């Protein structure tokens, strides 16, 4: 309440210059929001609107002239669902492995009493700025005989040094040293402390890590291109690329359908495929977004 009052007082005192500033600022903010939301909204509308209306260039604000054949065809298209299933598999397996690697390591590296903490941390940080690169990584994957398997999708990206730093910063600031000392006096081991005290206290960081890793895994495209071979193993992103960017969407409809309907469908199918592959993630976004901001701010404590 006190805060609200001061805001109101400030508003009363506002000079002309400040008023102009506020107006311009508001306009900029509205434009930014439109620039972000409208393209997405347009794609959503175009996916359910008659392609004739869409290509006539009308400025769409609400769905006029429904036409849902695009979705009927899209939903029947088997490779898309295979891609979905693969992506979900890679994301779930990958996120679990990443958590098992990152959370315990983040905790260990947050302990000031661990000998060799600094050099080990340096070895991880170094990977943020220098890496073997594409070809050596490809050869590593081949030598481990995981090429064209799920492991090739999840293991090379299992740990991100940045996430590890975020995790370590969280444990450093989030778990008081006194707690550890008290537990030690009671005869608690490091394992005991980590599993029974630190983990239950770190739901936030686990959520943040899940979000960061799962998004990265879900969005992986290039590694699939490099490390996978079979069409049946490709994740959603590759399927999407083939359909929209390599114009394979023409192959989606049944070959028997008339040329005109096919032409009409081809354009709409692109919109539908984008919606089907991007929107599930955008739907869960509002519930997860606060963790995004949290993760970044935790990481900022110690860059």
């Amino acid at each position, binding site marked *: 309440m006190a805060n609200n009052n001061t*805001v109101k007082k*400030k508003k009363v005192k506002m*000079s002309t210059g400040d008023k102009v*500033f*506020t107006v311009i*600022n508001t306009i*900029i*903010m509205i434009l930014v*929001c439109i620039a*972000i939301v409208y*393209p997405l909204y*347009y794609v959503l509308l*175009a996916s359910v609107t008659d392609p004739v209306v869409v290509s006539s*260039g009308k*400025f769409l604000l609400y769905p006029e002239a429904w036409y849902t054949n695009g979705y009927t065809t899209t939903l029947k298209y088997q490779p898309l669902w295979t891609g979905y299933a693969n992506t979900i598999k890679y994301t779930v397996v990958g996120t679990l492995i990443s958590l098992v*690697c*990152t959370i315990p*390591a983040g*905790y*260990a590296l947050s302990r000031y009493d661990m000998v060799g903490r600094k050099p*080990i941390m*340096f*070895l*991880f*940080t170094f*990977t943020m*700025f220098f*890496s*073997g*690169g*594409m*070809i*050596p*990584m*490809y*050869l590593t994957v081949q030598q*481990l005989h995981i090429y064209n398997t799920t492991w090739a999708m999840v*293991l090379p990206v*299992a*740990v991100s040094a940045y996430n590890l730093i975020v995790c370590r910063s969280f444990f450093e600031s989030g778990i008081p040293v006194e707690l550890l000392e008290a537990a030690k006096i009671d005869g608690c081991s*490091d*394992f005991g402390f*980590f599993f029974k005290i630190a983990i239950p206290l770190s739901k936030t960081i686990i959520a943040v890590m899940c979000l960061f890793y799962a998004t990265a895994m*879900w*969005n992986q*495209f290039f590694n699939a291109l490099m490390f996978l071979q079979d069409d049946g193993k490709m994740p959603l*992103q*590759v399927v999407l*690329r083939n359909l*929209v*960017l390599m114009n394979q969407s023409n192959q989606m409809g049944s070959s028997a359908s008339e040329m005109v309907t096919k032409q009409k469908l081809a354009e709409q199918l*692109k*919109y539908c495929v*984008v919606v089907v592959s*991007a929107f599930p993630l*955008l739907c869960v976004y509002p519930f997860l977004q606060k963790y*995004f*901001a949290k993760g970044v*701010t935790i990481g*900022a404590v110690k860059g």
Partner: protein
Amino acid sequence: MKKKTSSPKTAESGKLKKALSCWQLYILLIPALIWLIVFAYYPMYGLIIAFKDFKGRMGIMGSPWADPIFKYFKMFFSTSIAMTAIKNTIIISLESLIIGFPIPVIFALLLNQVQRSGPRRIIQTISYAPYFMSNVVVVSLISVLFSANGLVNHAVMGAGGKAIMFTSLPEYFRKLFIGSNIWQTMGFNAIIFIAALTAISPEYYEAATMDGASRFQKILYIDLPLIMPTIILMLILQVGNIMNVGYEKAYLMQNGTNTTVSEIISTYVYKVGLQTAQYSFATAVGLFNSVVNFIILVITNAVAKKTSDISIF
């Protein structure tokens, strides 16, 4: 003499004892360490093949050394594509940095001026939504929105212009690439500056109001100087990744007509390395890229350390 030899010894054994006493912490580290060795440092060791005539069957160690040792580096510089790829990489990254870096800062400063917390939170939430989307989705969006009869061209034609083939004309590649980068990352990159801004004590603003400062002056003389350390830190990190242009997106946006501007070092590495299997040559090109990048990082870090006392290592 005795003292001199014995004291380091006890220090050593003390350290060992200390290390042994926290053995459980090392166990917690094991999964990450295995990853570090296998997927970070073993590939770095694999960089040796840039100096060898790598043959798959003989392995990294067994393959003979290249003769001369810098054969593949020389080969790269003698190709006509080398200069194009280097030039494109540098131009794209510099433009991204110059245009793309200040925008999240400005956005954060302006957003911070939105007084009511409700709208402020909504705008912020919207602003980093695109960060969630994959490059494939973003490039797909570009391809449908900027196509011959997409939304943008209708706007162009509505304004009396002629339809432009945005996605295939070389002169629009960088505009689309950098523009969509900003669209994707502005909100996310702003988070850290917004956090720094909310940490500023309200006393500063109160004092400034007493002195009759306008809101614009407050941004310029309070906000900006106080978040400067964060800005410099982020700048070092960004410059330190300058040669690592988003190759995934560049690759996705590439087509037959725009390779003159869209071919960057990393996409070239992928093509010669994995599509034509010239492993040693591609590794050399990639190594060149990483080394240049690393040198730039070290220099930036040193300059920042000297001038502002802020550094990442």
